[in-house]
């Protein structure tokens, strides 16, 4: 029987190479796969391109990964926050490259990668600094910017429960980028709170079909990395 469950975070992340593009789920803390990120820091792959909505909060998770110096570039919509001091410092020191993308274009570009779309015309950002140098087009009297898919080598996401085939369900607004990032990477690694038996998830309610999931690691609730 197909079983994608791995014993440890470290084992699940072992083949992430230097220079990889890694998508990391989460919107702020909700859905952020903290234990996988901590594992990525231990793993030590360098020269990473990270895709996330933010650029880290406080002194944990993505912020710590940025602090590690392993991140060459970050693609995100909203780096600057009240508690983004780690990113802010490295950015001002010229130690990290930043691509700011409007949040909806970020989400749609990730979806496009997973859906085999070569590019799409989005109205968002037309006439702004973030569309500079991009192809534009007027379609039926409305202005659009051509946006490209964002592909990843790995996606690290957090879900609520998985079955052994990798079918996933999420919890509330922690769903956010998880389902689309799972589709856009060559290898998707998921940390989950619960692992349930095959058949225990209602087929009508599965949010991410197992086809998009390669490896599952269970992290007990309240566990520390």
């Amino acid at each position, binding site marked *: 029987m197909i079983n994608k469950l791995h014993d440890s975070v470290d084992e699940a992340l072992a083949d992430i190479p230097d220079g990889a593009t890694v998508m990391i789920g989460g919107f702020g803390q*909700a859905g952020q796969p903290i234990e996988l990120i901590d594992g990525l820091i231990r793993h030590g792959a360098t020269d990473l391109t990270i895709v996330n909505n933010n650029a880290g909060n406080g002194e944990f998770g993505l912020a710590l990964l940025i602090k590690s110096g392993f991140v060459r570039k970050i693609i995100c*919509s909203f780096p600057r926050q009240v508690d983004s001091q780690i990113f802010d410092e490295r950015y001002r020191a010229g130690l990290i490259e930043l691509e700011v993308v409007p949040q909806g274009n970020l989400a749609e570009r990730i979806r496009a990668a997973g859906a085999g779309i070569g590019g799409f015309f989005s109205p968002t950002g037309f006439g702004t600094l973030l569309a500079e140098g991009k192809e534009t087009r007027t379609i039926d009297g409305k202005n659009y910017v051509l946006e490209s898919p964002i592909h990843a080598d790995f996606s690290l996401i957090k879900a609520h429960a998985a079955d052994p085939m990798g079918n996933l369900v999420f919890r509330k607004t922690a*769903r956010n980028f998880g389902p689309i990032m799972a589709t856009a990477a060559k290898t998707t690694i998921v940390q989950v709170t619960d692992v349930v038996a095959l058949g225990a998830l209602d087929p009508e309610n599965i949010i991410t079909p197992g086809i998009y999931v390669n490896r599952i690691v269970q992290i007990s609730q309240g566990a520390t990395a």
Partner: protein
Amino acid sequence: MSNENPLTRAEMAQRVAADIPYGSVVNLGIGIPTSVSNYLTPEQDVILHTENGMLGMGPEAHGDEIDNDLINAGKIPVTELPGASYFHHADSFAMMRGGHLDIAVLGAFQVSAAGDLANWHTGAEDAIPAVGGAMDLAVGAKNVFVMMELTTKKGESKLVDHLTYPVTGLACVTRVYTEVAVFDIDTVSGASGTPRVTVTAMFGDTTLASLRDLTGIPLVDGTTNSPTKGIS
């Protein structure tokens, strides 16, 4: 412009809340716009959208209600109302971009007479750019309401002929709520080169002359009409 009796921020939020039609689907931007939710009544049946994947968002969560998996766009724990639904980020922004939200209420640095919005970047050389969902909301919602003070600390109008701050979205703002007046912007005319800004309400001792003087915009007097104009 001096005004001895402007609206307080709470009164502005109250005013915006009162103008939202029954059953509207609304996204309230981070910051002051969020306070509008305090003045929405259950009878209005307004449905709140949050960009991070939810319709039917309820009030801020307190005490035992707090669930770190249930937050709003400002990353503050919130609650869910009956009839709520969750969806992923691409679906959330498809909803926005596809024109399915009735109203977005946003803050602003500047709004132009053509309805252009500047609210994401001060333009300062050393500022770290961060846009979030601002550009998506600007172009996506059927109506974009801006809530802002009419003047900067230096006394310059933030309702301007042309933006001097970096653009968030072009010809997208349909109404501007300030502490001294409410302005309706006809973006359709604006897009064709003949912007039309109508003053629909004035507060305290504000006069149309003083608003024209401050903004330099040929404001149309709409205060004799009903105070709350319909939205599309």
